[in-house]
């Protein structure tokens, strides 16, 4: 008897939980998928958002911009995070599937070029950066600096920072074989800090004392120049939704979160540049 009662209770509880979970999931579940660069922003947004919207359940997957676009097109994701704009082919496929991608720019990803503080060079052009990273220029004396071999340091090719730099400063050309690779912003920073002839690049949020960030094409790397689009090595970060979210819906709240002060603080804290001066 006792045992039967327990079984019944458990089954009943299970049913109640199951039904309520299903109903709740339907209205309050969001899946965010895409870029590994935008992923940390989405993660932090989701965490902060779920504190104010206690019934929200947000899953964030970070597999790559292409995967995000595919997931939005297939209806598997509510929001696609992308570090590039959608390709023509992706857009066409989305429309074919009845999905209308709408882009929301949440912030900018700026990349600062850094050298050792003892290096007298304080300004480089993107053309000079291209020459350094493709191996055409190998000594600082060729750029008007001291006679010292250049140690070019790059982030690993899987990072978003590499993507920006490779596209905007190296013009997607092949990097020289002598370029060294490190696997994080702090490591790139540490290597340049301890290497006299070193040059590297890090996300804007990682520029600290101990290295020198050079001006690129005459523009210093800071939040103002990146947000205004004057600094050349930068790109916008996107969230894509299917159509513009219904005002008043949870998705609307989420998609406008980056405009709130808290949202902008998060973007800043993750090393990216918010669009406005909050």
């Amino acid at each position, binding site marked *: 008897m006792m045992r039967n009662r327990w079984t019944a209770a458990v089954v009943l509880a299970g049913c109640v939980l199951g039904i309520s979970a299903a109903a709740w999931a339907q209205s309050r579940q969001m899946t965010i998928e895409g870029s*590994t660069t935008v992923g940390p922003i989405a993660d932090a947004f989701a965490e902060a958002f779920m504190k104010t919207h206690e019934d929200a359940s947000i899953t964030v997957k970070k597999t790559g911009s292409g995967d995000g676009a595919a997931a939005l097109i297939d209806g598997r994701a509510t929001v696609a995070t992308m570090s590039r704009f959608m390709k023509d082919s992706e857009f066409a496929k989305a429309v074919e599937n009845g999905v209308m991608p709408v882009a929301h720019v949440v912030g900018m990803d700026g990349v600062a070029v850094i050298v050792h503080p003892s290096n007298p060079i304080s300004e480089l052009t993107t053309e000079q950066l291209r020459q350094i990273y493709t191996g055409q220029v190998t000594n600082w004396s060729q750029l008007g600096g001291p006679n010292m071999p250049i140690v070019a340091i790059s982030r690993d090719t*899987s990072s978003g920072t590499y993507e920006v730099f490779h596209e905007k400063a190296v013009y997607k050309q092949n990097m020289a074989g002598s370029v*060294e690779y*490190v696997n994080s912003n702090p*490591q790139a920073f540490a290597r340049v800090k301890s*290497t006299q002839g070193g040059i590297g690049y890090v996300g804007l949020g990682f520029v600290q004392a101990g290295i020198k960030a050079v001006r690129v094409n005459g523009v210093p790397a800071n939040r103002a120049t990146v947000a205004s689009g004057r600094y050349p090595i930068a790109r916008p970060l996107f969230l894509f939704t299917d159509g513009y979210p219904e005002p008043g819906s949870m998705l609307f709240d989420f998609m406008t979160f980056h405009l709130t002060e808290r949202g902008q603080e998060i973007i800043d804290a993750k090393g990216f540049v918010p669009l406005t001066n909050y």
Partner: protein
Amino acid sequence: MPDNATQAVQPQRAATADFDRPLLLTPSQDLTGFISRLVGRVLLLTITSTTILAVLLIFVFIIQRAWPFVAAGGLAEMFGSRHWRPTAEAPQFGALTMLYGSALVTVGAMLFAVPIGLLAAVFLSDMVSFRIRQLIKPVIEILAAIPSVAYGFFAILVLAPWMQEHLNLSTGANALNASLMLGIMAIPTIISISEDSLFAAGRELREGGYALGSTRAEMLLRVVIPAAHSGILAAIILGIMRAVGETMLVWMASGNATQIPSPWWDLTASIRTLTASIAAEMTEAPEGGIHRQSLFTLGLILLGITFGLNLASEYFLSKAKRALHGGKP
């Protein structure tokens, strides 16, 4: 005579007891006993075979993932080109620089780990008192227990700046740095296995050497080390395997530049290894794409190398065992 009497009685009693025992078990008890023994054996066999199964699965998995690349003739490019540009518009998959990088740091590591490891092993097995040996051995084994990422931090934050400052190198993240650290990581393996085989060469051999009038040095060089050479070779091969397979440390310490240094023996140039490439690029390579397949092919090459080395070390170890158990000298 009483002795005889007891002896005569005893077998009979024993026989009776033996004859009684099966009768104490009912058929069902007998069956249960048989089945539980069988189940126990099968269970243990299954548990043991999971290891073998895991190895087989890894082989199958990697071959399966690498196959499209290999089938499309990718190996020719891999072994024939120096250009590794897997994410370029027209991707290139030449792995020569990485094969060379792996070889260079391994040879570099062995150049300094083998003499140190071997001398330390000889010292521990033949020269030092037992008490000190008991003190030193655990300390050496601690070296093997330090995680490789900790070595990596040391390499990049301490050794690299030091080399730049004192050896006047333009970059401290280079083959020399990786070699030194790999050498330190391989030393415990080399010491512990070659010390075992030196120790196992036995007292008779040593005393025989002394009896023929040799000094300790002569006895060690002419008798003990030759007798233990198979075990020493196995130790060196295991050390090489440690160096070839290490990933985190080389990814942090070697600089990861995809180039073959010029001149070719230049240890102060930055290089990249097979393992570092796989670790660095696997996360970005899209599922089902040629880049991912090429990385699995690199893994397959690596697996082939370590498998060959493992077979070699097994061969030498079994030869060492046979020699020490009175087989062929």
